């Protein structure tokens, strides 16, 4: 009998009577289905069916007004032929790589510093201060940052002016807008990775460090030989989650630049939004979504493979 199965007197009697594994008590069947109903029906209706619908829709031309027409792989060809969509995908992939590298580096560095020797009140102050941006809305943060990075009166350009640097067109040049979107995104999201690393570092037993100190290992060597291998499981999960989240970027570039200048900060999800709800190209939007989902599945599968091979589980 399963450990987690609550056993009532009558169940036990039935179990004994039937001489083996207990048949599930029928009086609990009502509870099982009533309790599952909201989640199972809800997820089925609003997640599972839409996933299938999206997959099917990706192979159709559909503008809501006229009936859907089978399109074969047209929508996928369109994705690669249409310069805007192609650029949006390249932007997204470039963004994901840059964001994940910066986010992991910043988060790991700060987590190591926060977990080093210091008074507890100071540690909790820094920890709270550093993950604080996570609680804000991406829309609000982007509004704030749009002003800070404003070319004429923004604080960032005023600060740079102190060093004689001329006003940078942060949101009006392609490279500037890309950098700002990256900075704003990482600013808001590194706290998530940071918290994960804090958990990982706190999990390394103190004795390991003490033993290695006796052996004369310090600083960098200790980090490379002890901390890094022991937090590699955290590192892997953190990078995969960071990649998956970054692939879905929308709010920041939408509020900051609406994808501009030109298509410089257009992202894959922005293409989903625009092709579906502006151009009524529901098939194309679905195709972009499917490719995005396949990318996420690929990253997840890669995580499983890597964690089997390279990650050190202490």
């Amino acid at each position: 009998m399963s450990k987690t199965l609550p056993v009532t007197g009558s169940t036990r009697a039935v179990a004994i009577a039937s001489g083996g594994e207990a048949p599930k008590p029928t009086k609990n069947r009502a509870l099982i289905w009533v309790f599952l109903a909201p989640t199972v029906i809800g997820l089925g209706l609003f997640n599972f069916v839409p996933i299938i619908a999206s997959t099917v829709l990706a192979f159709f031309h559909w503008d809501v007004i006229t009936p859907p027409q089978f399109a074969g792989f047209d929508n996928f060809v369109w994705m690669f032929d249409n310069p805007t969509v192609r650029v949006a995908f390249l932007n997204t992939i470039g963004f994901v790589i840059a964001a994940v590298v910066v986010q992991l580096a910043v988060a790991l560095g700060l987590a190591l510093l926060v977990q080093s020797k210091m008074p507890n009140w100071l540690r909790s102050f820094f920890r709270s201060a550093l993950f604080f941006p996570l609680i804000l809305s991406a829309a609000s943060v982007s509004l704030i940052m749009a002003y800070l990075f404003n070319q004429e009166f923004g604080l960032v350009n005023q600060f740079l002016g102190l060093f004689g640097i001329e006003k940078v067109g942060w949101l009006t040049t392609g490279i500037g807008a890309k950098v700002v979107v990256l900075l704003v995104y990482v600013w808001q999201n590194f706290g998530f990775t940071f918290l994960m690393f804090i958990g990982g570092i706190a999990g390394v037993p103190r004795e390991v460090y003490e033993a290695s100190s006796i052996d004369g290992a310090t600083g960098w060597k200790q980090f490379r030989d002890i901390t890094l291998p022991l937090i590699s499981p955290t590192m892997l999960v953190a990078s995969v989650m960071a990649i998956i989240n970054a692939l879905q970027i929308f709010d920041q570039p939408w509020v900051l630049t609406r994808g501009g200048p030109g298509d410089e900060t257009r992202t894959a999800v922005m293409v989903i939004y625009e092709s579906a709800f502006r151009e009524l190209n529901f098939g194309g939007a679905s195709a972009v979504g499917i490719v995005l989902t396949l990318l996420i599945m690929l990253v997840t599968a890669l995580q499983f493979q890597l964690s089997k091979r390279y990650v050190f589980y202490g």
Partner: protein
Amino acid sequence: MSIQTAGKPSRALELGRIGKYAILLVAAFLTIGPVVWTLVTALTPTDSATHITSVGFGAFEDVFKKIPVWLYTWNSALVTLIVAVGQMLSAAMAGYVFARYEFRAKKVLFALVLATMMVPMQVTIVPVFMLIRGMGLADTLLALILPALPTAFGTFLMRQYFMGLPAELGEAAEIDGAGPWRTFFGVYLPLATPGLAIVGILAFNYHWNEFFRPLIMTISDQNFTLPLGLVTLQGNLGTGSVSTVLAGVILSMIPALLVFVFGQKPLREGLTAGAGK
């Protein structure tokens, strides 16, 4: 002062310590600074020549004049609270069944629940929008509430939580004559409060701040949520008054700040819960 002539290693240590605090202070300044600047700017409206014209809550009053703040706040609060409570309930019930009952479709159903976590909401938004339209709920708050009520992640979290509670509790309750319903509501649910807090706070934080779904699901501005209203306030790329927009931003932050101050532990635990292997 009695500065000892420090040996080389300890001076290096001292420098390292200063460097460490310097980096952390700069980092903390960079995360908190923009929000402090936002508050200061909201309280000190400027004219076009960037001279401070007045100090006070003038910009906050302007927000109320320019957009229906109370209505947007009400919309946001309604959506967020119903979704948070709904997720807590649905996740607790489903998580409980997955943790403590055996039934035929259990493995398949649980795998399907987990599978839905892999597909981001932006990918399914088109069919969900069609479905909502078909249900006659387009441009209503229910369009935001209904699809958000079930939660795969919350179900997973609550299942883990209930699996950590001893099975003997339920057995004892049932020997004392409690039926399966009372065992759940009277014994297990109260014990699962910390897990419920995590699900609730994460839901609150996510839906209070969410932008993408409201942008698509609501059309008329009486159904806007606060983040959407704020972006409207900004106008066409910065034509709105800086102080007014930022005053609105500060107003919208208040509930999230309260959660940050009073619910920090469940918030932190929840945010990293997905990482636990």
